[in-house]
């Protein structure tokens, strides 16, 4: 269970207000597929993933990235109750999608890197630390229903 202080929550929501969910989602998912190519195993139906530029420009990657980040919005609205918020998605990722939870950790860290590259100095160590707690909490919540 992740416990975020008032300051950490403010740091998270403050940054989120400026995030372009569509672009950031696509970029994070794209980078995951480029940097950790074995994660492409879940996306056989996505078409051309043959090079970094193919991946980053792939419309299915962008669309799916947007979907993933939009669900992150739920996390931010429910920071005190991530486990319940992601219960259904956790079951889905285990029973239907068969995704190793290690992938949630990898994606969370790629998201942090993307935020850093977009926000520069505003992405202070304190802000990063708050986001690390959040992405770690989301990864844990998404693995909670695994069996």
């Amino acid at each position: 269970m992740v416990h975020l202080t008032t300051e950490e929550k403010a740091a998270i929501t403050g940054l989120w207000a400026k995030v372009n969910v569509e672009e950031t989602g696509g970029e994070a998912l794209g980078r995951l597929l480029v940097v950790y190519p074995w994660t492409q195993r879940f996306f056989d139906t996505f078409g051309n993933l043959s090079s970094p530029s193919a991946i980053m420009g792939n419309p299915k990657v962008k669309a799916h990235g947007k979907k993933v980040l939009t669900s992150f919005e739920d996390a931010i609205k429910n920071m005190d109750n991530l486990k319940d918020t992601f219960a259904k998605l956790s079951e889905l990722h285990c029973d239907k999608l068969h995704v190793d939870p290690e992938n949630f950790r990898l994606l969370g860290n790629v998201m942090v890197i993307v935020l850093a590259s977009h926000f520069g100095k505003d992405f202070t160590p304190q802000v990063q630390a708050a986001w690390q707690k959040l992405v770690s909490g989301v990864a844990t919540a998404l693995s909670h229903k695994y069996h």
Partner: protein
Amino acid sequence: MVLSATDKANVKTFWGKLGGHGGEYGGEALDRMFQAHPTTKTYFPHFDLNPGSAQVKGHGKKVADALTTAVNNLDDVPGALSALSDLHAHKLRVDPVNFKLLSHCLLVTLALHHPADFTPAVHASLDKFLATVATVLTSKYR
């Protein structure tokens, strides 16, 4: 995992653009790591770990200089970092999990300061490079 010729070129080119800020980035990465992953502080009970600490800055420069040595010797990273490898195995004994944490914070720092050059392909190469360094530094642990 092997560094391809492209990876080596990407790393060398990117590192060349750091403009002498390597030491500063090393310190920032450590600072970020201590704040985001407090368990890493257990290896530095003898340090002042408050942000801006001179000890952290000094240590950051050490880390950056070692990485620069690796960048200049990409064809033989084990050879170039052999002494550091011995040090980490026999004296420091930092648990291997921590190298991932520092590597991540280094990537965050580099992405933050050089977003235009930190393309997905370069990001991949740097990630592989840091993983290679980590593997070398833990290679003599047992």
